[in-house]
Structures are given as structure tokens and as C-alpha cells.
């Protein structure tokens, strides 16, 4: 079988899903941060909180626009790249997709217009309520997307009858074993993505000029969120790792670079897993660590990659995607904690930080966003060759589109995504320097 179409389809789907995940994560966390800014503005009456809301609502709006637009290619590719998939999992996926689309529709049509364009037309209380509902809607949408994404990783509540999943327990389908951990990870990474975006932009502004109250308020909030989320990452990653070990032993073994069943586990810090040699090259391992993140067979023997020959995920990619996630997590923990320590005595005010440290914070501007991307790559690559864990492979549901068509559309998607990310980035840096000018939609929707 020609491997190229499968590879192109995998790259395309991973790219689209990662793009969606990145901006969904930003929009989710920014919407909750904006709600916090609004509530603080009500409580304290300080103009700084309102200023922080005004500035960051712009980047919430841009992220939301991008995530909404990005949902369509993911949905279309789910149908057209993997035509056989819905035939098999339609009973499960159909309602979940329906609820996801419905959530985002209700949030957008009922509340987003009020939040973005209706501030003058409604009372402050109603406006804050709209912000709250938008934040809830974001969370609900993410919930349904992750319910499906988790279910394909750890299918539960449905059995495969005649090559088609039939649901016997909806509760078990939705609250499948990995949902809680995936929700936790996504919430934390989205908090980190938004918090580091705010920290980085504010640090950039602090390098150029004196900060105003709004920027200080945003920095303070983002710093606390960043420290909390960076610390919480560790127990959640541990929990997610244990669930993965139980349900996806091949992915767990690839993540650990653990080749031979039954050998003493050792957590490989660095190294290059070589699939040909079935061994790690230039490995630096912590012996005796990491057994709890490896799958075991019924006799309690650790399962290595040799148990899954022919059905291994791409080991180097899985292995390194996880290392990137962990490195970024560690870097964010370090930067946020040190910043907290440096500013704790000065009311978390970044103005007095030394310039070189401000530059370090600027450098981590997209660290949280990259963690979302690497996490997405890890989760998708680690599943291969399966589309639904251990039952349905990607190659059996792959469509018939030719290599040329797949290649051309992949190029189109990559160019489009790169352009849009660059545009977002450009607007961010422009706004960091010159601020944002409020916009109005002429004759905007009548809410």
C-alpha cells in the first residue's frame, strides 16, 4: 500500500486540529480572564481593570474568530479525509459533534454580539452576564470537542458490533476514562497560553515605556494564573500519564522510549529513539523512574514497544513531542515562579524588573501556545496507527483522494494557517506598541 496519502492525511488533520486547539485554548482562557477583569472593575471601581478588559478583549475576539473559522476545516476533513470513520463511530460521534456545533452557535448568536459590540447599549450588569455566558459557552464547546477526542483515545460505553460502535451507556461514553484528565490539561494549557501571552506583551511594553494601570492589572492577574497553572500541570500530567499507561500502552511505551518488555524501566530524559534498531541512541535516563507511566500486562510485566510491532506509533515524534511539552512546562514554571519571587514585594509590578529579565519573559510569549500545539501533536501521533484506540486503524478509514490532490490541499491549508498566525502576531505586536482602537460594526446585529 502506498504510504504517502496516509502520511499527507495525517499531517493535514494534525495541522488543522492543532490550529483549532491553539486558538480555542487562547479564546477559552482569555474569556475567563476578561470575566475576571470585569468583575474586578465592578468590585473595585478602578479604571485599570476596565482598561485591561478593553485591551485584551481585542485578542479574545481575534482568537475567537480564528477558532470559529478553524472548526470548519476540521469538521470537513473529519468527513472527507477519513470517510470510513463516521460509518463506524457515527452513533457516538454524531450527537457529540451536534452538541459542539450547537454550543458554539448559541454562544455566538446570543451572547457574543452583546459582549463585543453592545457594551454601550446594555447595562453594566447585563454586559458582565454576557461575558460570563460567552466564557461558559467556550467551556461547553471545548467540553464536547474533548469528549469526542478523549473517547477515541479511551473508548468506553459502546461496543463494536458488525464493525460499528453501538452505544449502551451514554454516561460512560461522555465521561470516558481520559476525559477528566484531558479537560484538566487543556484548561491548564489554555490558561498558560493566555497568561504568557499577557505577560509577554506587558513585558514588551515595560521595556519601552512606563506601564499604565491597566497593563499592571493584567500582568498581576496573568502572573498569578501562570504560577498556579504551571504548578497544577504536574499532578495532572501524572494522572493523564497513568490513564494513558492503562488504556494506551503503546503510546505510553513510545512516550517513555521503552522498547523491551520486562526490562527495568528508566525514564529517558534525552535521547533519540531509533525505530530500526529498536533502541534509544545517546540516551540519558533516570533508572528506576517512570514505571507507573508504563502499561503492564495481566502478569504485571511492563509492556514495551516490542509488544506492538507493526502497530507502533511513530516513536521519535511521540517521544519528542512529549519532551517539548515537558520542557516548555518546566520553562514556564521557572519563569513564572522567578517573576513572582522578584515582584512579590512590589505588588507584582513588572516595571521594576531588570530589562534582561523582561526580555526573558518576552521570549516566553508563545510558550503556552506551543505547549498546546506540542500536546496536540503528542496526543494525535501517539494514537497512530489507530483512529479509534486499538480497534479502528487510520488506514482502513482513509479516503480515496489522490496524492496530488492531498498534497495541493495540504499546501493550501499550511499557507493559510501560516498567514493567519502571522496576521494575529502582527496585530498583537502592533497593539502592544500603539494600543487598540475600539471598533464598531456598522449597523451591527440588533442585540
Amino acid at each position, binding site marked *: 500500500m502506498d504510504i504517502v496519502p496516509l502520511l499527507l492525511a495525517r499531517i493535514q488533520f494534525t495541522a488543522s486540529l492543532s490550529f483549532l486547539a491553539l486558538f480555542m485554548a487562547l479564546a477559552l482562557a482569555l474569556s475567563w480572564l476578561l470575566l475576571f477583569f470585569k468583575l474586578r472593575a465592578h468590585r473595585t471601581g478602578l479604571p485599570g481593570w476596565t482598561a485591561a478588559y478593553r485591551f485584551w478583549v481585542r485578542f479574545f475576539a481575534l482568537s475567537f474568530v480564528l477558532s*470559529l473559522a478553524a472548526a470548519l476545516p476540521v469538521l470537513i476533513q473529519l468527513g*472527507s*479525509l477519513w470517510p470510513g470513520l463516521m460509518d463506524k463511530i457515527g452513533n457516538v460521534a454524531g450527537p457529540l459533534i*451536534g452538541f459542539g456545533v450547537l454550543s458554539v452557535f448559541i454562544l455566538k448568536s446570543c451572547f457574543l454580539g452583546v459582549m463585543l459590540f453592545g457594551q454601550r447599549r446594555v447595562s453594566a450588569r447585563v454586559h458582565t452576564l454576557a461575558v460570563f455566558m460567552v466564557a461558559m459557552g467556550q467551556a461547553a464547546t471545548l467540553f464536547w470537542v474533548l469528549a469526542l477526542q478523549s473517547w477515541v483515545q479511551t473508548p468506553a460505553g459502546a461496543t463494536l458490533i458488525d464493525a460499528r460502535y453501538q452505544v449502551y451507556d451514554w454516561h460512560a461514553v461522555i465521561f470516558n476514562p481520559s476525559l477528566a484528565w484531558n479537560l484538566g490539561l487543556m484548561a491548564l494549557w489554555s490558561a498558560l497560553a493566555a497568561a504568557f501571552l499577557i505577560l509577554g506583551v506587558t513585558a514588551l511594553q515595560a521595556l519601552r515605556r512606563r506601564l499604565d494601570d491597566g497593563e499592571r492589572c493584567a500582568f498581576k492577574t496573568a502572573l498569578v494564573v501562570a504560577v498556579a497553572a504551571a504548578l497544577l500541570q504536574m499532578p495532572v500530567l501524572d494522572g493523564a500519564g497513568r490513564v494513558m499507561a492503562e488504556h494506551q500502552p503503546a503510546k505510553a511505551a513510545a512516550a517513555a522510549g521503552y522498547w523491551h518488555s520486562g526490562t527495568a524501566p528508566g525514564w529517558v530524559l534525552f535521547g533519540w529513539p531509533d525505530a530500526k534498531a529498536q533502541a534509544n541512541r545517546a540516551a540519558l535516563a533516570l533508572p528506576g523512574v517512570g514505571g507507573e507511566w508504563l502499561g503492564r500486562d495481566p502478569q504485571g510485566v511492563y509492556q514495551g514497544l516490542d509488544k506492538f510491532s507493526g502497530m507502533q506509533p511513530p516513536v521519535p515524534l511521540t517521544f519528542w513531542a512529549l519532551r517539548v511539552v515537558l520542557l516548555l512546562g518546566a520553562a514556564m514554571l521557572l519563569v513564572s515562579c522567578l517573576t513572582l519571587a522578584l515582584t512579590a514585594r512590589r505588588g507584582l509590578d513588572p516595571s521594576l524588573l531588570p530589562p534582561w529579565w523582561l526580555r526573558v519573559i518576552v521570549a516566553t510569549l508563545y510558550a503556552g501556545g506551543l505547549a498546546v500545539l506540542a500536546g496536540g501533536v503528542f496526543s494525535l501521533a501517539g494514537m497512530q496507527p489507530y483512529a479509534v484506540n486499538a480497534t479502528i486503524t487510520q488506514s482502513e478509514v482513509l*479516503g480515496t483522494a489522490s496524492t496530488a490532490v492531498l498534497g495541493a490541499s495540504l499546501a493550501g491549508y499550511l499557507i493559510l494557517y501560516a498567514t493567519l498566525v502571522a496576521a494575529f502576531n502582527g496585530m498583537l505586536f502592533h497593539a502592544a506598541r500603539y494600543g487598540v482602537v475600539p471598533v464598531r460594526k456598522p449597523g451591527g446585529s440588533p442585540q
Partner: protein
Amino acid sequence: MIEMLAASLGVNANDPTFWMPLVFMGLLVLLIAAGIVLDGFDLGVGMLLPLAPADERGRMMTLLSPWRDANEFWPLLGIGLFASAFPLAWGVVFGKLYGPLALMALGLVLRSVSFEFRIRARAELKPRWVLGFWLGSVATAFGQGMILGRIATGYQTAAGYGWFAVLMGLCAVAAYVLLGAAWLVMRVDGELQRRAARWARHSIRWTAVGMVAVSVMLGLANAGIFYKWSNPGGLVVAVLVWVLMLLCFSSAELRLARVPGRGEQHSWLPFVLCVVLYLLMLAGLAYSLFPYLILDDMTLWDGTASIASMRLVLAGAVIGVPVVLIFNLLAYRSVFGKERRAA
């Protein structure tokens, strides 16, 4: 007729496994109709942007903005409903349409992002987003036309059918340009209205070519559809529809030729005629295919999920439909008539 259909499937007409797919199909056709008409004029105006003088382009995009939020949702809602109500047909249909769908997806993303980013971009970058909106609109319209072409030929893959899909892509571009231009004729006055009437008259011929071609191809490429229309009852309806379409085309053309002029109070007529035309065509297509999702291969009832899943989707639809209705009635109540300039 409903009873007959149910009997032919061997089920009771009150059986949910029988009527639920019908309800979903009805909703889906409504969503597609809304998408063609409402997202359609939006697409058309988008494609006309480069033809307008540079200083009018911003105004044209501003004209769209009250309905943009509502317009951009139709494709997502339609695809979402198709996926959740007919999951077993979804992959089969989408798998055959990979290329056109990818083109449409790229176009739709570019369109919706360009529109929102243009509002928020600094002045010197706005023209780039106008260009993006244009490009996205062209790709979307072309992709949709190709999808129509592939459906009309029954997804056959011989080389000639590929060219037919390309022709349909071009005709769809013309059809949406016509709709957008007719909408502009109704919406604005002065120089822009005169230009819009000229654009509409150029595109109306290609629209007519497309409609005739798709009808002929439907009949010729699919024996089942030919049979459906060629019995005596079908023939009468077919002739009536053809006469009605001809009337719509010719009166739209006549009205456009007189813009601007005394007919100012009837400037909404070409737009309404176009809407009637497109809805007729959609109805004809739906009637031709019914009760199949894929002709002679998969019916509505073969494409649905299990009854428990359908119930959940229906529950979602029961929540969703009122929201869609209320929101859209509010949003579209002012879609007809002249723009109000004061604001």
C-alpha cells in the same frame, strides 16, 4: 404519500426511525437553502469587490456587516447537522467530494477571518483583507459549484465529468455574482447601483447556462432521475418549472436593463427573482434525489445513526431551532430595502 413511503420501507409512519430522518432532512434542506440565499449574496458581494472602485470596496463590505454574523454560520450548522443526523452517509458523501470540499473549506476560513480582521486592521493593511475576502469568496463559490457538479453526475469519475464539475464551478461563481449584484441593486443607489446592474446582466447568462446544464446532466447521467421526471405527472411539473424559470430569468433581465430609472420602487425585484430561481433549483434537486442521499445507493434511512443517537440529536435540534429562528428573524428583518446612510 408519507404512508406509502413508510409502507414501502415496511414500517409504521409513526415509528420514530421513520419520521426522524425526514425531519432532519427537512431541516437540512432549509439550512442549505438559507446558506445558498443568505450566505450567497454575501459571497456575491465579496466576489464583486475588485470590480468596484477602490473607495467603494470598504462601503460594500460595511453593507454586509449587519448580517455577517448570521451568514457565516450556515455552512457550519449545515455540516454539523449532516454529520450528526446522517453520520453513516456523511463520510461516504464527503469522501467523494474531498477536493471541492477542501477548496470550500479554505475559502470559508479565509472569508470569515478576512472580514473580521479587516475591521480591526490598521488602515494601510485593510486592502489586503479585502483581497483575502475576495479570494475566499471565489474559492467558496467555485468549490460549491464543483460539489453541485459532482452530485449532479452521480459522483462518476470519468474525465469528462471532472470538466463538468469545473464548468459548474464557473457557473456557481456567476450565480452568486448575480445574487450579490441583484442585492446591491436593491440595497444602494447612484453609481454603485448602475455598476451592480451591469455586473448582474453579465452574470445572468452564465447562471442560466449553469442551471440548464445541471438539470440536463441530472437527467442524462442518472437513469432513476430521468425516469422520475419523464412520466406524465413529472413532465407536467417539469414543464411548469421550466416556464417559471424562464419567466424569472427574463423578467430579472428586463428589470436590470432599466436600472436606474423609474422602476426604482421595484429595485428589489431582481433579487427576489434570483432567490425564487435558486430555491426552485434546490427544490428540483431535492425532489430528484429523494428519498436517496446517494442516488440508488443509500436512502435517508440508511444514513442515520441508531435511534438513541437520533433522539439525542433531535433534542439538540429542539433547543437549536428556536434559537436559530429568533436570532435570524432579528438579524434579517432589515435585509431588504435601501441602506440607511445616516449612521
